[in-house]
């Protein structure tokens, strides 16, 4: 998958993967496949070893071969701009797919690094394409996931205040955690405030200042990297979103 892989392979052996048993089954690519198709799909999946925080799974410029589905942990994707500054593009939680940006030029555009101890399922993109030709349900799912990505990116490009951006991120994380079976009200963030600031195009101190404001308004409670949402309706109002 990347140059790092040569030092220590991500996929030490061909482990038996059972998508049908996976707790992310209703979020990940095979979610709309029937039992037989799921079994076929399992053959193209490579389960990784645990990936340590700070370890990269893709580097910008790597030749595109595979996409990755997050099994556990959290990843961030980023590019280095021409001033040498890191710019965070996004965060990936379990069940989310990394690497679609590399399809058109057959090269990874972003660096992708683990923020926690994580693991992924690697999927050779040739095999995925091949299989999607035979399984229209898989093809539909691929389109759906890509479309979701695009719509999220477009929404974040809107002219939003710092408060709206931060409230939206919290809303988005809350609903993403909830659909993964975690609490929607209380979660631990793997990303630093610097990552969040870079991702939302805000100054680092703005993140803390706005979160402190939310906290003194009784909307959230923050302890180190843990966030508790106390007033989800108010947070939704701030985010100008109907759902959270």
């Amino acid at each position, binding site marked *: 998958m990347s140059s790092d892989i040569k030092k220590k392979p991500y996929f030490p052996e061909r482990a038996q993967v059972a998508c049908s048993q996976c707790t992310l089954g209703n979020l990940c690519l095979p979610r709309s496949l029937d039992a037989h198709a799921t079994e076929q799909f399992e053959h193209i999946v490579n389960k990784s070893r645990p990936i340590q925080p700070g370890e990269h799974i893709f580097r910008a410029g790597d030749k595109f071969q595979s996409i990755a589905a997050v099994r556990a942990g959290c990843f961030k994707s980023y590019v280095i701009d021409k001033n040498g500054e890191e710019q965070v593009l996004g965060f990936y939680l379990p069940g989310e797919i990394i690497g679609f940006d590399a399809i058109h030029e057959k090269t990874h555009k972003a660096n992708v690094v683990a923020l926690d101890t994580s693991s992924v399922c690697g999927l050779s993109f040739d095999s995925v394409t091949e299989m999607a030709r035979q399984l229209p349900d898989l093809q539909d799912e691929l389109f759906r996931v890509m479309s979701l990505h695009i719509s999220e990116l477009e929404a974040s490009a809107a002219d939003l205040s710092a408060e709206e951006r931060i409230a939206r991120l919290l809303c988005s994380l809350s609903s993403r955690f909830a659909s993964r079976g975690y609490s929607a009200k209380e979660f631990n*963030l793997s990303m*630093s*405030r*610097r990552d*969040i600031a870079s991702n939302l195009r805000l100054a*680092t*101190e703005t*993140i*803390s200042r706005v*979160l*402190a404001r939310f*906290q003194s308004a009784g909307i959230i409670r*923050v302890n*180190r*990297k843990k*966030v508790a949402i106390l007033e989800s309706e108010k947070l939704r109002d701030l985010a100008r979103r109907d759902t959270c």
Partner: protein
Amino acid sequence: MGITTDFPAELITKYGLAGPRYTSYPTALQFHEGFDAQAYRRHIQSSNDDLIPRPLSLYVHLPFCKELCYYCACNKKVTRNSQRAEDYLKHLDKEIEMQGALFDRDRQVIQLHFGGGTPTYYDDMQLKHVVETLSANFLLSRSANREFSIEIDPRTVNKERIAYLADIGFNRVSMGIQDFDRSVQKAVNRVQDEGKTLDLIDAARKSGFNSVSVDLIYGLPLQTAKSFENTIDSVLTARPDRLSVYNYAHLPHLFPAQRMITTEDVPAPEVRLQLLASTINKLKEAGYIYIGMDHFALPDDELSIAMGDGTLQRNFQGYSTCRETDLVGMGVSAIGKVGNSFVQNRKDIRDWQAALDADKLPVWRGLGLSGEDRLRRGVISAIMCQGSVNFSEFERKHSIDFADHFALELKSLKPLQDDGLIELSEQNLEVTPTGLLLLRIIAMKFDEYLINDKQGKAYSKVI
């Protein structure tokens, strides 16, 4: 919390064991060299990554003294060689720069403390230079609520110096008095004039210091109940906002300076009890609130208010009202507390300077706290600061069953309960007014390291 009118002399004698002061938990005895500069950097990075990083407290250790006070157990260096002290400052500049670079610049410094040694060993220009170096490398709060304090040896300052310290940004002062009795002063090699000292307190008030704190020590050689009462009466005429009345621990096997004190001159345990009892009564009569351990404050002082509303905190200087900060310790042997870790600098000046000369952080040792440490730190802090432990609060925060997790500890508290130091219910541990004088004894029951290792020799006597 309030102090009992009946002084529990018998209980204090009974429980007069050795014990740590719990300015930190775990105590510095648990620090180890496996915790190095790299570990320290990691904890700083993680603290910068917090969604709302804690504000900062800075501690600057200035170890030099012109003369040796025989009772002293601090890390200090007695010298009249100003070149050494000047050289120390150059290295301190470098450490301030190195440490400042590690903390995100939007983290405000809301607390600053210059301790020693004798910070006022240095002259006005030198102290101003240190403050300016700090200001260039950290974001010092400009709020009137900031707590910027300095320890003063009254023998080294006059009214003009006091005013100057206010000018360069200090707004709290802590004065070392110890005892006004001339024979006691001679016995500990610290002779200072009573009238001049009281004038300095007055000058501090006039210069705009919004808090004046005074340190006294009981149990010093040649002290009698009568002589110490005179000292207290005299101090009370100046009505300091806070008083710390420390117990002198005579441990000449650990602190060479104390070998200069004639052991026979050190008051016997009964006399120490008398000294403590009369001190407490006098301060109470004068309207002071007993905060805990060795500390007293006027009712309108923030410490008294914080004790009332449960926001009191323990720190290396005693008690504090600040919301939780990360503490950056700078200078030889200085201790810091960042995130869930403690760190301590090299304690020998040469080693500390050598590390800085090699462009290395002068870290000697430290400790990363485990989940168990954090739980116990919380319980001990609740005992020391609130005098009460609410079990369900810890059950919620740490996902434990308190009665189950602390079954042995609760059992070991039984004798303390029988003696009326605490009250235990299903959901609560309450320190009684009697127990307030023996907070350490109660806290020690939750100290995992003491439970596992019964070595108490190095601790100062509780009484």
